[in-house]
């Protein structure tokens, strides 16, 4: 029998799997991280993953559980690119604009995608700077999945 070990990239929770705000669940996450050193960022990340963003109502819950001021929690929340305070669009494209991808046309690709009007409330296109796949550019994370050697047709194909 063939033995197949085929791990694939873990999928990010897509908007369809994001949960509605639930104070009890937030409290549970906060409690779990409260006795861990430096637990605030991992707690925020977990909330962000679970609910798609960090609702303003989560801030006081975290502050209390982790014994930090609301201002501190807010400061951390606003610092990191990954942490959102609004729900994400249905699809997200993080298109690499790092130098190695620029060298194979990533700047033009971003302009073309924006021109094609794909960047609307359904699809959010954002530049990122390097996805660690620089030999196979242009690269993007499309709904959390890494895709490489992209061109315009392919990228539009990914999205429709």
């Amino acid at each position, binding site marked *: 029998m063939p033995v197949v070990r085929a*791990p694939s*990239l873990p999928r990010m929770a897509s908007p369809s799997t994001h949960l509605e705000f639930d104070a009890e669940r937030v409290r549970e996450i906060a409690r779990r991280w409260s006795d861990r050193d430096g637990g*605030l960022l991992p707690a925020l990340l977990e909330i962000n993953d679970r609910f798609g963003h960090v609702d303003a109502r989560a801030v006081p819950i975290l502050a209390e559980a982790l014994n930090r001021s609301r201002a501190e929690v807010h400061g951390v929340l606003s610092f990191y690119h990954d942490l959102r305070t609004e729900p994400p669009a249905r699809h997200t494209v993080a298109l690499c604009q790092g130098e*190695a991808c620029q060298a194979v046309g990533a700047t033009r690709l971003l302009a073309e995608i924006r021109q094609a009007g794909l960047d609307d409330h359904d699809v959010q296109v954002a530049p990122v*700077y390097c996805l*660690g*796949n*620089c*030999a196979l550019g242009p690269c993007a994370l499309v709904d959390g999945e890494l895709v490489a*050697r992209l061109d315009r047709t392919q990228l539009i194909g990914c999205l429709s």
Partner: protein
Amino acid sequence: MTSLGRIYVPGDAAAVSVGADRVAQRIADVVATRGIDAEIVRTGTRGMLWMEPLVEIDAPGGRIGFGPVSEHDVADLLALGRAHPLCIGPVAAHPFLATQQRVTFARCGVVDPTSVDEYRRHAGLRGLYRALDLGPEAIVEAVTESGLRGRGGAGFPTGIKWQTVARTPADARFVVCNADEGDSGTFADRMLMEGDPFALIEGMVIAGLAVGAERGFVYIRSEYPYAIRRMQEAVDTARRDGFLGRDLLGSGHHFDIEIRRGAGAYICGEETALLESLEGRRGQVRPKPPLPAISGLFGRPTVVNNVLTLAAVPTILAEGSAYYRDLGVGRSRGTMPIQLSGNVARGGLVERAFGLTLREIVEEYGGGTRSGRPVRAVQVGGPLGAYWPTALLDTPFDYEAFLERGGMIGHGGVVVFDDSVDLAEQARFAFEFCAEESCGKCTPCRLGATRGRETMERILAGERIEPNIELVRDLCEVMRDGSLCALGGLTPMPVLSALEHFHEDFARR
């Protein structure tokens, strides 16, 4: 029933991004319907990335390879074997690999990264056993003797850092692995964590023994979800196997590792910002002194090392410091995993002893540009590295040779550009990147980068070019001399090197 033995398909994120999972699935289907006896193993990547997905099959003279394979090739490939047009013969004999000196990456792409048995069979844990025999002082001495310098960018001697941590009195010490790998054009940390995660764990355990730390953290950027999962699994496996955790390998020593995820901030690769982030705060740079080696994570003496630095340590212990030191040139000892990317025909990982020339890297390994047009510029060392013309391609790859010519090797990224590149635009981008990623702590960086971007935009629009170039130079001086960390301090490097070597791109508006 035919038997094919083991079939290897990389499970590395780069390979998966070009279809390796589909290929693996198709192989499993074909093998099952034809009743072939075979085991499919998901390895890391060999680093011949233009050839991914690269499928390998056991053969008497060593594994033979096929690439780049798509799922549509699989049925024919399994039927034809060596006669298939995608066959590249014995993989290890391929010119891209045969001339390399794989020390840190010896196992990557070869072994099943989830198997401790295979890790042991391929020389894994020998360094750790040796370290347990030697004891802390002799470990530090071996690392110092090897000449190993930090591979994260600054090139600081690793042995000296460890000695400082070991000698600073404290109730606890930490080992932090910097796996933030934010530099564009670099991917070796990711490749290693996905293809040989136990090597990093072994290196961290040895560091823990050397400095008397019992806890370690690996801070991995969020853009690497697969590496995060791989490392988490590897830590669990290592603990189960007994070479991590309490009383590791029955030695009476304890060392455990926690995996932490970044949250999308380039500055968190800077060691003090990384420590702030690990402590659960905004990733803002701390003034130095105190050095993290004296007062680091939670105020305790802390080793902060890059993935490649730590992963080089097991070999140094296992083979002896002389083995490592005898590779390389001048004050650059050992091997450097060089990452070749951008507009290049054969992009991938080239691990060689220091001292080969940039030309060998770009022309012989890389085979020139992917577009087929002439090479015009290379940027070495990430977004803060210099842009160089082809006239500098004969520079040997070593820390000092690069510094002498106004560049830096950084984390070992080499990005190739063809003649369609506009270096004035690249200079504008360097400021934009700095403005985007600045932590905001100091004015020269925060305001200088924005001013620089605006000024470059004027130059690109053909406005008052020469006075604006002067302004750019002044801004660069202020940023270089007045910034707290190297993000602001080194942004002038790509800008000024572009101005120096490609002035025509600024003037011709």
